[in-house]
């Protein structure tokens, strides 16, 4: 005898409703593949292209606490905004993000990144300058590569000083898809 889906759902919802979770997550479908979306009590704390839970859940548990459980309701709002974004109906996210555990420089880079508008591009060097360390372009590259909340913190809008796309932790194809969606890359590119 196995646990019935309704019972399973009921427990997952109750766990979240009672505030017993460090992290609630769910899997969302998107044009760039399934996304693992996770929220802490402070806000959105992870979007991952790697939906192979094992590794991702371990990492969430280390960062936020071991009470990590798949529970759709707390993630609903994020999924709705992502859907609107991918439908081309949303150009800015209205979501609290939890990046408290990152280093101060890392945080300030991500805060600057969050200001880069939809449909525009910036460079690693420019972002480094805005975060107060103009010569730290390489460090900014590393921070982009480890961005815990891609798409919402739009590291896909950051390119090399020559305009080359450089790279993307989720793979260049995804970066291109996102930039095409935003109209900053011609379809042929």
């Amino acid at each position, binding site marked *: 005898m196995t646990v019935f889906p309704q019972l399973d759902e009921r*427990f997952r919802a109750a766990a979240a409703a009672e505030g*017993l979770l460090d992290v609630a997550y769910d899997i969302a479908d998107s044009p760039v593949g399934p996304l693992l979306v996770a929220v802490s009590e402070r806000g959105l704390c992870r979007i991952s292209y790697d939906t192979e839970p094992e590794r991702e859940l371990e990492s969430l548990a280390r960062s936020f606490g071991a009470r990590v459980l798949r529970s759709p309701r707390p993630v609903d709002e994020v999924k709705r905004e992502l859907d609107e974004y991918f439908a081309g109906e949303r150009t800015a996210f209205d979501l609290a993000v939890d990046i408290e555990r990152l280093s101060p420089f890392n945080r300030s880079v991500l805060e600057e990144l969050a200001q880069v508008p939809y449909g525009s591009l910036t460079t690693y060097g420019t972002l480094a300058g805005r975060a107060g360390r103009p010569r730290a372009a390489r460090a900014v590259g590393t921070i982009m590569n480890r961005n815990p909340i891609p798409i919402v913190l739009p590291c896909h809008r950051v390119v090399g000083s020559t305009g080359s796309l450089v790279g993307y932790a989720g793979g260049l194809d995804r970066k291109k898809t996102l930039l095409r969606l935003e109209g900053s890359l011609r379809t042929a590119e």
Partner: protein
Amino acid sequence: MMEAVRIPPFETLYLEHRNEVFRFLVRRVGRDRAEDAFQETFLRALRGYPGLRHGEHLRAWLYTIAVRVAADEHRRKPAPAVVRVPRDEGVRDARPEYAELEHLAGDLPAKERAAVVLRYGYDLSYADIGMALGSSEEAARQAASSGVRRLRRRRIEIA
């Protein structure tokens, strides 16, 4: 020194044990009340999770919680005389004899009942049971054996 076993993400623990814990509760409190007991067991586990110091013996720990939840259920409302596990829906119950023993075990002192249930019903080692009950391996062994002795005496009385 051995490194402490890391506490796994709760999702991992839940997926690994939810079905057996549910089966256990169906046998303990009956199908109708097993759903509430199941939810209560895992909510209690979540409440206790931050207090764990390492990830060892988590299965035994879960069963201890389930045993307590089932005991609370019995206190709240005595169980029907016989709990029958439905045999359809492809259920394979490897321990039919135990289902009877467990039913009898319901009236044992809490610690003995838990030890008997975990040892004979779920095949946990005495070390695990001791950990689950917060006592030594030897104390777990004694609790299980005095529980079984008590059950035998009772069966003789009944007969």
